[in-house]
């Protein structure tokens, strides 16, 4: 009993440490190089296998290779939106400033992935469907997702006081999260040009060859590392900028 209590206490202490900007700044500084290393170790073989080793598709030729960028970005664009809303919720409920910071810092990364998804999608659409833009359900939802990201960022930018701005933007992200299931189920709701899901959780059922699946999965995991690294780096600089007149950045400089 007492042992359980102490380990619970330890978890709580560990959790609350994240509330301290100084501690977060130091801890994330150690983590970022490892995250970049993980990204490089996964992304470089993934790109090599995807762009050079994997055989051309029997129908689409080499143009299908854009999925190695397109699909991971599309997954990230939605995952980051959900994470942004979750960080926002944590920030609003427990009033943890770091969670608010991470919610806001997620927005530009997610918006960038959404933009990459849209651009690579339309580049792929030209040789495959014969058009750069098709108003099909998933492309439209992705576009709406981009507008939602822009809304969150614009709301944050327009309010002077940073913490108030972060809370308002977090609330908007939570509201926008209602949009995410619609994106996900839009494939089933509206019958359109866009091809159905090829990858299923059960890999045996997946209709994709291993030589293409392996690089795709490598890149899917690599983008997670990329997001974590950029998120931590962005959060660090935002905290440093907001706290430039406080004591902990000065102490940090002196210690260095």
């Amino acid at each position, binding site marked *: 009993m007492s042992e359980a209590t102490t380990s619970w206490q330890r978890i709580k202490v560990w959790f609350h440490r994240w509330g301290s900007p100084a501690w977060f700044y130091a801890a994330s500084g150690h983590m970022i190089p490892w995250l970049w290393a993980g990204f490089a170790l996964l992304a470089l073989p993934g790109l090599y296998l995807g762009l050079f080793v994997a055989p051309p598709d029997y129908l689409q030729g080499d143009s299908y290779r854009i999925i190695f960028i397109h699909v991971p970005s599309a997954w990230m664009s939605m995952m980051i939106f959900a994470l942004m809303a979750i960080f926002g919720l944590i920030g*609003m409920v427990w009033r943890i400033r770091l969670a608010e910071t991470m919610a806001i810092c997620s927005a530009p990364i997610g918006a960038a992935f959404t933009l990459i998804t849209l651009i690579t999608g339309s580049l792929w659409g030209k040789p495959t469907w014969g058009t750069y833009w098709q108003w099909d359900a998933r492309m*439209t939802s992705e576009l*709406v997702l981009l*507008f*939602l990201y*822009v*809304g969150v960022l*614009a*709301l944050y930018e*327009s*309010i*002077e*006081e940073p*913490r*108030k*701005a972060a*809370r*308002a933007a977090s*609330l*908007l992200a*939570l*509201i*926008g999260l209602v*949009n995410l299931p*619609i994106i996900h189920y839009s494939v089933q709701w509206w019958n359109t040009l866009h091809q159905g899901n090829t990858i299923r959780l059960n890999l045996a059922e997946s209709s994709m060859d291993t030589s293409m699946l392996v690089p795709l999965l490598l890149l899917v995991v690599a983008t997670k590392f990329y997001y974590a690294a950029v998120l931590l780096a962005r959060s660090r600089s935002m905290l440093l900028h907001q706290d430039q007149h406080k004591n902990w950045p000065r102490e940090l400089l002196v210690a260095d």
Partner: protein
Amino acid sequence: MSLFISLVRTDLNIAFQHRGELLQPLWFMALVVALFPLGISPEAEQLRQLAGGVIWIAALLASLLGLEAVFQHDDKCGRLEQWLLADCGMLKLIAARLLSRWLVSGLPIVLISPLLGIWLQLQLDALVVLSLSLLLGTPIMTMLCALAAALTLGSRQASTLMSLLVAPLYVPLLIFATSAVRETQAGTQVDMQLLLITAMLVLALTLIPPAVAVALNIHLRE
């Protein structure tokens, strides 16, 4: 309950003192609809196909007008702080404000829609579905607008920003409503679309008033 009714009555009184402003969104909506025959084609068949989408988009744009008025005045004169401290809780007052706002800006859109539908050559069955979809949809629009108004209270260029926040959230509503009108014209059953809009209305009624309360809290307490 009496506080609820008296707030609605006060809001309506104030709104009717500025009758001219009340009509502006309606004129705007009529103008937008009238631009389509001029800009695309006055041919009846073509207009009939566009009608549902045009009227719905005009309604969405009209709802964005005067959006900042929902809470701005109460914020400036300090009444929102009193709401925060009210015995009955903020939610009831927000609900009253949403109701009066819908009566002033949403209901007129529903009432004017059959007229605009006739301009665009809609048949009777499509007119009924159009008005019904607007009757179900305008409360959702009012609530989303109020939410955006509450979120942007502390911000600089509030009015432009609000349209940017609200418009993406309108998308599912627009899709199902216009699909209902189109399917009626094609002679198919539209229960599914209307029920989905009703479901969205129930969801909005449940979630948006508390979200507005949270947004006002963020503005007032920070």
